[in-house]
């Protein structure tokens, strides 16, 4: 075998060091500028000596009024600055619903039920193919009503599922944080497909006997990205109410949404959606800063609904036989990519280090003015974040994002493993992924997490959190009993 020419290797190494040096220089520019200046000043002061300094001060001829006015101005400016800063929002803790193993749906059971319920053998074949390539495992769970042949989606069963998942998550959260239900000031619940009267938030107020002046909200119909919308709403409310806390519940109730028909674009949710819920406690109290896990840095929302294609991309409607289902259009991935690009454009300047932003700016200027064929520079988000939680909507979503953000397998591991163990739990999947990262002992103080949610609309929402204290293992949560088995190797196709 001919010897590989060394120069290739050495140039790439040289390039790596050049890049590192450039990043260090730009990101720490101010520090690098200030330190020599401060050093010079200190040296100058030390050189001059105390008598000379006193004589300089006397020559300034300051009297009491000058001093008082200057101090007043300084204090005034500082007060205005501190008052106008947004209140920090802390995530004290969160809890995810752990389904009972007796609710699990092995592939063989799912396919058997489908064959017995579905009259059209082509639909059965189609669903088999989806399940084989879905990236789900054998331990994902469906609510009890969906285990019947045929499923029995009564309103009572849907309420029972809601009570099961939501109350379990809240009970766990209360145990972890010592939260008193009477001290909850804000309650936000998001559940897209099940919206009874009274609302799910009223159900929670009733069960836990919350205060009568609680600010409760119930968001329905907002899709799989609604979890981050709830966080955004809670954050906005916490800016207005000092010394408060907010309980945010993200869930999706599967029971009423089993699709009984044969349209292929509507069969996917049957195969992928599973039971899940998350309860999150947010607070803006200063005393919670010491015990909180994370601080919310940014929430960026992008809504592409103005575009007709994006609006009809995930659409709930009745098919020709009158069965209601959610149709997913074929250009879902393209639209998701588009929405992500918009979202990144907004979030980039907020989170990227200066080095990446400058590179992007120069490449943009270069493309516009000098050479339009220059490749657009994709900023390296791995420098802005240590952990990524990508909505586990399906294998395709995770693959697409891994490619477009140039993430490594370890970065998307949390998303893939959550899809395998819990399936697509809709808005709560981001919290299961975060719990995975914590359970693996990877969450250290100072780490930044980027949660990306996609949902009908078409919406792409991002939240950025900063870890305030290292999370020690073992972590009590839905991964507690199975984390040692993960990560698993998920085959491309599981033969059924």
């Amino acid at each position, binding site marked *: 075998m001919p010897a590989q020419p060394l120069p290739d290797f050495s140039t790439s190494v040289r390039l790596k060091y050049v890049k590192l040096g450039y990043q260090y220089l730009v990101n720490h520019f101010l520090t690098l500028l200030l330190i020599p200046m401060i050093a010079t000043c200190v040296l100058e002061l030390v050189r001059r000596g105390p008598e000379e300094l006193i004589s300089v001060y006397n020559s300034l001829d300051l009297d009491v009024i000058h001093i008082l006015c200057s101090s007043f101005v300084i204090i005034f400016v500082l007060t205005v600055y501190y008052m106008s800063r947004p209140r920090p929002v802390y995530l004290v803790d969160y809890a995810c619903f752990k389904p009972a*193993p007796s609710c699990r749906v092995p592939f*063989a*059971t799912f396919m058997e*039920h489908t064959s017995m319920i579905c009259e059209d053998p082509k639909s059965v074949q189609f669903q088999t193919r989806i399940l084989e390539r879905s990236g789900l495992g054998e331990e994902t769970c469906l609510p009890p009503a969906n285990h019947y*042949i045929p499923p*029995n989606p009564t309103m009572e069963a849907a309420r029972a599922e809601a009570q099961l998942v939501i109350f379990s998550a809240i009970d766990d959260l209360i145990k972890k944080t010592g939260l008193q239900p009477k001290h909850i000031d804000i309650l936000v619940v998001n559940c897209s497909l099940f919206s009874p009267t009274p609302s799910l938030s009223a159900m929670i107020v009733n069960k836990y006997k919350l205060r009568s002046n609680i600010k409760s909200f119930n968001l329905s119909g907002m899709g799989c990205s609604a979890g981050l919308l709830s966080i955004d709403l809670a954050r906005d409310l916490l800016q207005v109410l000092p010394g408060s806390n907010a309980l945010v519940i993200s869930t999706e109730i599967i029971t009423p949404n089993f699709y009984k028909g044969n349209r292929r674009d509507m069969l996917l949710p049957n195969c992928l959606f599973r039971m899940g819920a998350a309860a999150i406690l947010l607070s803006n109290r200063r005393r919670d800063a010491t015990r909180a896990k994370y601080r919310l840095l940014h929430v960026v929302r992008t809504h592409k609904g103005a575009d007709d294609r994006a609006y009809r991309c995930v659409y709930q409607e009745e098919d020709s036989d009158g069965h209601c289902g959610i149709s997913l259009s074929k250009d879902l991935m393209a639209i998701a990519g588009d929405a992500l690009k918009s979202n990144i454009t907004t979030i980039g300047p907020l989170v990227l280090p200066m080095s990446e932003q400058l590179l992007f700016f120069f490449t943009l200027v270069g493309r516009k003015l000098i050479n339009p064929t220059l490749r657009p520079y994709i900023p390296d988000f791995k420098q802005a974040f240590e952990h990524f939680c990508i909505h586990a909507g399906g294998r395709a979503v995770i693959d697409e994002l891994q490619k477009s953000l140039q993430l490594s397998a370890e970065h998307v591991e949390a998303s893939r493993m959550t899809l395998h163990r819990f399936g697509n739990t809709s808005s709560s999947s981001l919290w299961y992924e975060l719990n995975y990262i914590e359970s693996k002992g990877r969450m250290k103080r100072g780490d930044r997490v980027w949660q990306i949610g996609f949902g009908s609309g078409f919406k792409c929402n991002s939240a950025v959190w900063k870890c305030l204290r290292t999370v020690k293992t073992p972590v009590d949560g839905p991964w507690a009993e199975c984390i040692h088995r993960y990560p698993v190797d998920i085959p491309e196709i599981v033969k059924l």
Partner: protein
Amino acid sequence: MTVSVETRRSRVTVYAKSTAPSLTPVKPGKTHEFTALDHSMSRHSVHLVCYYRQAPTVTMTALKESLCDVLSYYPAMTGRLVKNEGDGCGEWMVKCNDAGVRMVDARADTTLDEFLATATDEEERQLAYWEDVGSDPYLWSPYCIQFTDFKDGSMAVGISCTHFHADPTCVAVFSRAWSETHRRALVTCPPFFHPWAFYPRKNPVPSSPHLSEKSTIPPPLHPPAMSSVTFAFSASSVRQCLADLQLSNLSPFDALASLLWLRISSYKRASLGTAQLTLAVDCRRRMSAPLPLGFYGNALHFFGVKADLSSGWIHIASELNRHVSGIKEDDVWSSVEWLHERSKEKAFQMYGPELTCLAWDNVPVYNAEFSPGAIPVHVGCRIGNAQGEGLVVIMAGAPGEGEEARTVIVTLPTDLTAQIYRDEAILKYRPKIMFSPNI
């Protein structure tokens, strides 16, 4: 006991069907192979019904949870039938694909005591839902568990399965393991999967004149409609029986089996002569390397007993006793080896079409306590597809009735059943008549 003349509408309603998975996923690629005995039983099914009084821990939801738990130990139960591609025994094997067992929810429009006193044969049959294999065995659950709620909160648990997988002993041991899992107690008879238990010996002597004869009997063109009746003999009744026989070495089985054989035959033909009875006996413990009670699969040995019925009851009873106690292990092995040779051929009917008797009273069936100290009030066992001259199942009776108590379930052509449960010779011993046919 008077039975209403008009056919009554059944009080049992099935309202939902679902599937129970095991709690722990099965490792992919696991399989379970059948023995020659399993293949020979493939035409039949086993149905075990246990009745329980109301108890706080015995609810449908709690039982379903513990069922999922115990299924983790029985991966063969949650698997599905696939064709045996290799050169193993027989045409079929089980692919342990984790599909789960079928569950059926039902309710009975009456209280437990009322049901036990007045239910018909048809109603008891409805407590163990069963669907025969359809067009695709891969989608068919070989087990079906029915939960029936009574009006007073009592519960009946009906376990049905194909005889391919398990014999009645196996089903009874499973229900015991389930009850122990429900109570969070130690499982005393964990399942023992050992398909090589009945693999032919090094020097096989395949021979079974009885089974060879059975295999040549053509299936009846018009199988008669069958119905059943249950006789519950208390310990004093059985002791009276034995006292009347005056022989000291006879067991309750000998007494009851011979009595029924005699009485059934006397209704079938006017004059009695030499007749043959097929006996089925559990041979787990009769092997020199005894199989544990938890052995999963079939371990029934079928053989014929000839006796001259005109010689009287005592003679018949002693003949039965002689044959049952004199079963030789070599005969069991020969019969197994004969079945192994023809395992790839189509199975023939084992229970019937001639008069058959299942000797099952040596197996404890009243030990499935779902609630501590609360044993079943009654246990019934039926065998599916036993058409022909009839089947007599002799099983242990409720412990409260005494150690010698026996429950006898007689399945006969309908017109014979009507006569047998009014038979004076049997009624002399005052058995409690339950689940008589609706005629």
